[in-house]
């Protein structure tokens, strides 16, 4: 047996193939430099190479691929937002996820099992009616369900009838789902590098050379790189990186924490989230229950966790599903999120002519990985912002045209 394995391993018929090549030498210049090798940066690189024929592209990643929020997120994918601009954008994102495995020839394990958001108060029910009507109007599958509907969708849930947290109904979003986060990043990376995009890991952007209204080059720990166009897609570091280019984004950094339990047999068949409890749960395909919730209570540039927050998540989870009380936690972690005042991203142009922003993704950006990459690639290739992205412009804060998605984001991401 070991001999046969060895023969197989050394055979010319089965050459070793990595998904992406090792980091090459940095060239002195690229047409497009993408800062950040998370899902967003890699998705943009893929779309530039495949759909716009732009292949002189370097993705500069200070650590390893997807090591930022991409591989820390709880993978909720949905479009049940409240503003028409937001819904239109996230709807395109969900549709791209529906075909993503084929697009990438890489199984991203997209599982469209629907998301159920719970209401424990009449006020929440009213906001659900509004979201459902907006969702239907925009062509998504979003509807309000009553108590019986909740019990049918999620038979094991504690309805707390007559109790202080009685579940009054829910928002059922049949388009909602999850996907494997690493696979999304690696699928884009593999496709992009196959078309000539260079992926530079352990390459940190440390400064910008700005002349007039243009970025001439970025400086990194591996040297200077001249660039035609530049995209900032650095997740939790977006404020910090934009500041190096002299741009102060309306972003504040907060840690966001999550955790998973030991694997259990399949019992939770939808995504479940509670606004009042600030807790959401989903069972992974391995059987682990992924539990997430609201952001930390104060700003911080750190991925440390706190016992307070983990206790809070456990409390919410055990309230909804009391039989989870004896279950052990397997892992827990945190990411730094770049929060905007209106819980919508900042996409498109910056005050510098050739610097583009894919920022302000806070606690909700994984679901937009395909659509943001597609639309930012279009923006960079054509040199102008497409209509679907215009509402997310940085200037909206100066013109007071905010896109308030706070209520539709708070506990569900």
């Amino acid at each position: 047996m070991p001999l046969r394995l060895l023969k197989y391993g050394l055979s010319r018929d089965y050459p070793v193939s990595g998904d992406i090549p090792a980091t090459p030498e940095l060239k002195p210049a690229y047409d497009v430099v993408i800062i950040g090798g998370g899902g967003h940066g890699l998705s943009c690189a893929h779309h530039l190479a495949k759909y716009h024929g732009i292949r002189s592209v370097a993705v500069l990643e200070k650590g390893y691929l997807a090591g930022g929020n991409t591989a820390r997120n709880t993978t909720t994918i949905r479009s049940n937002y409240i503003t028409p601009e937001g819904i239109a954008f996230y709807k395109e994102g969900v549709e791209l996820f529906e075909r993503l495995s084929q697009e990438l020839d890489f199984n991203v394990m997209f599982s469209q099992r629907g998301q159920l958001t719970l209401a424990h108060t009449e006020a929440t029910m009213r906001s659900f009616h509004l979201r459902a009507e907006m969702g239907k109007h925009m062509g998504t599958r979003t509807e309000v369900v009553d108590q019986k509907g909740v019990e049918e969708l999620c038979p094991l849930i504690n309805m707390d009838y007559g109790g202080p947290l009685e579940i009054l109904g829910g928002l059922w979003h049949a388009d909602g789902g999850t996907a494997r986060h690493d696979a999304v990043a690696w699928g884009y990376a593999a496709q992009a590098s196959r078309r000539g995009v260079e992926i530079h890991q352990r390459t940190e952007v440390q400064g910008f050379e700005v002349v007039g209204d243009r970025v001439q080059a970025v400086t990194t720990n591996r040297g200077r790189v001249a660039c035609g166009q530049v995209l900032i897609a650095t997740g939790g570091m977006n404020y910090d990186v934009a500041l190096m280019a002299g741009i102060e984004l309306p972003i504040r950094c907060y840690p966001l924490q999550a955790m998973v339990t030991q694997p259990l047999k399949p019992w939770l068949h939808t995504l479940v989230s509670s606004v009042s409890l600030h807790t959401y749960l989903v069972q992974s395909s391995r059987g682990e229950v992924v539990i997430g919730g609201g952001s930390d209570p104060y700003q911080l540039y750190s991925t440390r966790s706190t016992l307070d927050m983990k206790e809070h998540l456990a409390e919410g989870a055990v309230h909804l599903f009391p039989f989870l009380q004896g279950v052990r936690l397997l892992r827990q972690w945190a990411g730094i999120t770049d929060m905007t005042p209106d819980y919508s991203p900042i996409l498109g142009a910056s005050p510098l002519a050739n610097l583009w922003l894919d920022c302000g993704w806070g606690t909700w950006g994984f679901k937009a990985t395909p659509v943001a990459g597609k639309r930012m690639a279009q923006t960079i290739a054509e040199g102008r912002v497409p209509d679907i992205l215009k509402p997310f412009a940085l200037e909206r804060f100066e013109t007071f045209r905010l896109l308030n998605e706070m209520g539709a984001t708070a506990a569900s991401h």
Partner: protein
Amino acid sequence: MKLLTCPMNGPRNIDEFQCFGPVRARPDPNATADRDWSRHLFRAENRKGIVVEWWRHVPSNYFFLAERDLVSNEIIRTFDAPQLRDRA
């Protein structure tokens, strides 16, 4: 458990406090352009480094200030609101 020292109640579990974000200079309503208003409303201090923030001890509803490091999370000192005016 992380401790925060309230100028009135002494060291308490940080769980008992609520953070109200970085102190911002108040613009003069008669002499402020729209642009500066939007800055005041939507941009709060977020640089890596030390920030001065409003905090409240929730049970006693006491508001005060804290200097905190946004990277290490070290609380450098806490002080009463009138001292902020003295600093300015």
